[in-house]
């Protein structure tokens, strides 16, 4: 039995989610930052964290964006096999919602029309990065992030050997975070994509970031790997702002998929402390 759904119904929840996340962080992220501020021992990092907590309060109260980099919109549409979208094409609805949110929210338009030829601002923050995935069931789920580029510029990819151990994977991720130092606005949230092809691993590293910050990976091996990675990343001592401290990362989220016998792609998306995301279900 196929469910019919008017794609236009995506507009309001998507626009509203974008308007909200650039101004208000999810509660789990606020809790993690407040806890990090309370336990920080590095004097400069403590200043950074307490200012971040104040910034969250001012943004919410004055309805100002948390950060002037209101990001490039990243949208992941999961379409159930038993649902058929009707009316306006979903792609156009999503574009309209992004444009409306960036105009109404007085967000910075940070997208250029081409990486090189010509590098001119589209003035609408369009297009978003849009991924579509088919899933079982009759639901439509839209996950959205507004991705800042101070952190995106520090993301990275390693193609490891198929014989790489879990420790080799950890070291590849740690190397990327160590090299990033203070630039991506730590404390960061780290998304790790393992397996697939190079592009699939990169996408998984973004999808992993959609998970709740305080959830636990359903597979115990990966849950343990996430915990160990978080401990080792925080042991780097980079700290908030890169000024030295006990919290370099707020969380590590791993997503994996089957891969080829000859390889082990490892992709890392670095997200800043302003971990701006929302999930909408229709």
């Amino acid at each position: 039995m196929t469910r019919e759904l008017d794609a236009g119904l995506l507009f309001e929840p998507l626009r509203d989610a974008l308007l909200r996340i650039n101004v208000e962080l999810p509660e789990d992220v606020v809790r993690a930052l407040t806890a990090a501020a309370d336990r920080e021992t590095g004097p400069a990092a403590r200043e950074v964290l307490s200012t971040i907590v104040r910034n969250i309060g001012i943004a919410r109260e004055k309805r100002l964006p948390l950060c002037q980099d209101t990001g490039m919109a990243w949208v992941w549409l999961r379409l159930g096999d038993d649902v058929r979208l009707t009316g306006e094409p979903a792609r156009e609805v999503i574009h309209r919602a992004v444009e409306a949110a960036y105009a109404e929210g007085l967000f910075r338009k940070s997208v250029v029309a081409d990486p090189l030829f010509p590098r001119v601002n589209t003035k609408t923050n369009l297009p978003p990065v849009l991924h579509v995935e088919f899933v079982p069931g009759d639901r439509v789920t839209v996950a959205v992030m507004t991705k800042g580029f101070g952190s995106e510029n520090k993301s990275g990819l390693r193609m490891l050997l198929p014989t790489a151990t879990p420790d080799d994977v950890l070291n590849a991720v740690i190397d990327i975070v160590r090299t990033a130092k203070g630039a991506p606005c730590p404390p960061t949230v780290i998304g790790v994509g393992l397996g697939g092809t190079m592009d699939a691993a990169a996408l998984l590293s973004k999808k992993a970031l959609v998970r709740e910050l305080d959830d636990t990976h359903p597979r115990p091996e990966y849950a343990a790997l996430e915990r160990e990675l978080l401990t080792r990343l925080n042991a780097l001592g980079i700290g908030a702002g890169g000024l030295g401290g006990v919290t370099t990362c707020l969380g590590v989220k791993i997503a994996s998929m089957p891969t080829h016998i000859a390889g082990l792609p490892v992709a890392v998306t670095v997200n800043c402390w302003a971990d701006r995301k929302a999930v909408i279900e229709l």
Partner: protein
Amino acid sequence: MTPISLPLTPETIEDLRAGEAVALSGELYVARDAAHARLIALLEAGQPLPFELRGAVVYYMGPTPTPPGAVIGACGPTTASRMDPFAPTLLAHGLAGMIGKGQRSAAVTEALVRHRGVYFYAYGGCGAFYASCVTSNRVVAFEDLGPEAIYRLVVRDFPVIVANDCHGGSAFYEPA
């Protein structure tokens, strides 16, 4: 937090030490990637710059649109290393200070010592907070660049940390 007046004097710069939290009051010039490329082109052509470089502090920032009735939108720092290729030339021509986030290259920290300048770390991502420290905001050059134009801001009690001082000191932690 030590109060510091802008523009900077050579005496003030000599007294600043990496790791120190200070509050800046006075004028800042906002410039980022595209504006830096133009400033360097003007210097190379022997043309005058649109503001007095001597004693000036440049803030690496690109704000959100200003809400009605407000002075400025969210206005936190951007990554400073993108301006590393330009900074030594500007320091050689009198620039006294820079504000941004993240580490600088060795060429920049060496130029800070040679030309007696300072790099301040501003709290990354705290755009809403910094908006409340800005009392005036106007475009002074390159208006066609939009959020990348050069703005003159007047700030009051704008908190930063001395990240790299003119004595070679650094507040950044170097991971092993």
